[in-house]
């Protein structure tokens, strides 16, 4: 399939990229790894007049240690996330989730920031970003601003980004020593999650000190299972199965999956 015609622009700094977005107007789009945007263009579900390629902005790649948190550049590829030792040590959940994303080809091009900006409710990285209290650092014509994940994901394929803004970094607090697991149910390896559950658990003295649980593809955006999280604080590991029932109260298939997969994700996270 062939996309409609567009202009291709290649900025060399973030500020230049923002300027281009402002100049090109609402019909311009940022292209990162292109793994979600290119299919949309080829199917002519969207026809932006200009693409601003942020792939050359090296300032947006890589993971940095920032004291209590990590700063993950928006253009860091899935492949890099999988192999980064800071992520492995302080945000293991992100690595485990990313391991399940697509296939090696896609993981070499697709980016962490692109996944979050695309905000596909079946996308795997939204729920862990929400559960881990990630903060989006955004550049726009008015300068930089920070938006917590809980306010960033607005709805179905919708974020708090304005058309002339670019996600540059994602700040993720350190979860050093937490157990983590991503329990994903999909029909074939390259298919999207029907439902998936991202869980991170901190164990202290045999009981659960804190838990983070995010649900993928149960609504128009990621959902944080706050009831499950709070029910677990101070509880023994044996409390997981009962707490997992709080992941959803409905009667449908996805509600069932939310409960079953929450149980499994937490149990596996604890088992390390």
């Amino acid at each position, binding site marked *: *399939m*062939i996309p*409609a*015609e567009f202009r291709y622009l290649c900025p060399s700094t973030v500020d230049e990229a923002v300027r281009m977005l402002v100049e090109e107007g609402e019909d311009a789009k940022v292209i990162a790894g292109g793994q979600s945007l290119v*299919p*949309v263009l*080829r*199917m*002519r*579900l969207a026809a932006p007049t200009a693409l601003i390629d942020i792939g050359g902005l090296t300032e947006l790649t890589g993971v940095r240690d920032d004291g209590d948190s990590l700063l993950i550049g928006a253009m860091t590829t899935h492949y890099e996330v999988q192999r980064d030792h800071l992520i492995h040590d302080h945000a293991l959940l992100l690595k485990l989730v990313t391991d399940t994303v697509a296939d090696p080809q896609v993981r070499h091009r697709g980016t962490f920031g692109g996944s979050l900006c695309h905000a*596909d*409710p*079946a*996308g795997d990285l939204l729920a862990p970003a929400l559960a881990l209290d990630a903060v989006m650092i955004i550049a726009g014509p008015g300068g930089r601003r920070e938006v917590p994940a809980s306010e960033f994901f607005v709805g179905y*394929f919708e974020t708090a980004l304005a058309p002339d803004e670019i996600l540059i970094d994602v700040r993720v607090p350190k979860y050093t020593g937490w157990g983590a697991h991503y329990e994903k*149910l*999909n*029909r*074939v*390896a*390259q*298919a*999207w*999650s*029907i*439902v998936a559950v991202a869980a991170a658990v901190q164990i202290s003295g045999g009981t659960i000190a804190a838990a983070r649980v995010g649900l993928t*593809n149960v609504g*128009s955006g990621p959902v944080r299972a706050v009831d499950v999280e709070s029910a677990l604080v101070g509880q023994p590991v044996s409390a997981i199965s009962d707490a997992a029932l709080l992941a959803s109260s409905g009667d449908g*298939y*996805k509600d*069932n*999956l939310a409960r*079953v*997969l929450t149980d499994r994700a937490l149990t596996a996270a604890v088992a390390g």
Partner: protein
Amino acid sequence: MTATAEPEVGKARLRKEDARLITGQTKWTDNLQLTGMLHMAVLRSPVAHARIRSIDCSRATAMPGVAIVLTGEDLAAEQGSLPCAWPITEDMLAPAAPALAVDQVNFAGEAVALVIADNAYRAADALAAIDVDYDELPVVLDLEEALQDNDLVHPDLGTNKSATWIFDSAEAGSGTNVEDEIASAEVVLERTFRQQRLIPSFMEPRSVVVDPSADMFTIWSATQIPHILRWMLAAVSGIAEHRIRVIAPDVGGGFGGKLQVTPEELLCLLVARRMGRPVKWTESRTESMLSGHHGRDQIQKITLSARRDGMVTGLKVELLADMGAYLRLVTPGIPILGAFMFNAIYKFAAYRFVCTNVFTNKVPTDAYRGAGRPEATFAIERMMDELAVELGRDPMELRQQNWIKHDEFPFSTVAGLTYDSGNYEAATDRAMELFDYSALREEQARRRSSRDPVQVGIGISTYTEMCGLAPSRVLGALRYAAGGWESASIRMLPTGKVEVITGTSPHGQGHETVWSQIVADRLGVPFEDVEVLHGDTASSHRGMDSYGSRSLAVGGTALVHAADKVLAKARRLAAHMMECDEADVEFATGSFSVRGTSTVRSLGDVVLAAHVAHDLPEGMEPGLDADATFDPDNFSFPHGTHLCATEVDTQTGMVRIRSYVAVDDVGTVVNPLIVDGQVHGGLAQGIAQALYEEAIHDETGTLTTATFADYLVPSAADLPAFMTARTATPATSNPLGVKGVGEAGTIASTPAVVNSVLDAVRHLGVRDIEMPLSPERVWTALRGGAAEASTPAAGGLGSIDSQGGQS
């Protein structure tokens, strides 16, 4: 006959064509670039059923690079009707099938206008500038509702029913009357199964290039059937056949999906004629799914009668088969190919088959790997399990009681076929041994009693199929418009190298390798010295192409006959050269010798002597080339036993295949590596029908599974490590003893998987689950819900139009 030192037949040769295919160092149709070539883009109907009020092309015509925009009206006088070569009954109703819709569209995806432009991008851009005004009609989608004739797909036909085709063993004299058997039976089971609609997902999308220069129409097409295509395009377009040359260059898969005379092939030809310039069309994947023919789509009502002791007596099959909106090349005959296979390997006294072909506002159906036979095998193998459950019998033991024993061959079946050979006991014994049947049964019992959330099931499929399509007289009796023979030619080049020309048209199967192995053995020449030419009507003018697991059984036999003709003539010449009596000439490992002497002439010497023709026996023509055409007397009947163990996660409904054993008897094996490859791919597609794939239309007739994010084709990551083995009971219907292996895996595996899942959850109250057995369907069935509970699968690109995530 003769052989090189180590026989080639039986050797696991790496495929000689693979290097160029895998690296793309070859000419796929879309790689062709011709000077002055135009590009065609097709505007497709977004609605499933509508009158076309008007089409306004003025904006599109004015766009940059656009040479012309054409509608059905522009081509009405020349496009004729696309051919259907299989009018299954005398009174079959067939609508006119214009390649480009003229005043009505009958499925979403049907071609309504063409843009011809100087490049593919501009052609695609201009599509959006064509304005079509549709007057929508009621949409007919459901088979059973369609039969009510409340709304009609083709009002001029007066009904949605195309034809009813009947086989009855009492009328045919091949068995008793099924109604009598049912009336007097101790056990009668009635079940209804749905064969969902599938999409043949070949890797290379369809592509056509037509070059009208030099007073010829040279057509390159990614097709399985260059010969049939040439014949049919001549018939439809009125262009003289000798002015048409069709080339199927390397073709990337077909699975029956390229056994077609497509609208786009005809349209490219007509456009090239009109413009006097070469034209190319290459489809996108979504276009392929929206307009290339689909497969399966039947409702099967099966009644089986038996005695309490387990002996089956009667089988009644009542089918509704979805034709889609038009009858394509062999659309109506596909379910009929299954008619002879429902009785399978079992000894039924009576059999009746009634198939009603029905029109709906969907993409036409036609051949898809197995074509009629997977549907039949599924139904009978599901029924044998149902009978085992009903009688409280072990399903394998019940099959054994009913199948044809190895000493009963040749066996005349209740469906009127003669199975020449087979040994179901041997294949089953081998499969049971590899599978460890009893250990799995024990594990199953353990998991049941402990109420393990993961239950285990065992599924059996003891299948047979008819291959080697086909004896021409049988095709004639079935009202098929063509024959089923195949041809081969051998050209002995002066340097001793060999060119083989085959009428089969490989599109991934590895004929070049296998044909070379056969010739190497037959003529005693090195494997590397054989080149196989195919798929070009200029070099191979006679052929019936590749489908129906026919190429080796029919085309390979023609090749053997051609080689024998070469040798017979060479022997005469060798006798002349060695000045001896022909009866004293011996041939071994590529050399002729005089019995009891040291006089020797290599085949190469004889070939050269024949070529220079300086000294030939009286009346002998120069050269050793030979042609042969083979028309088989009978089909061939591969068979086998497939065993599948699944784990069913009762909390999520997810099915995982634990182990899969396939023991196939495909007769003599020329190349075990290729046979394994065919079995693996076949299994993948059969398992895909059981668990993953389904073409889904919404209530307006829009195909909602039109990308690979929605239409779930499994990959290696989703499939178990297959355990394959073989028994070999040679076919008696051809000199090679081969039976065909292209479809075996697909035909056998679907019921093995479904039987296995049902076996895992039957004790929990589940009787049936509709295919594909998605986790949601399995979970819903476990909750006691309707088998067909599922919400339609999610829309475009996994999750772009919907909540996403196919459940």
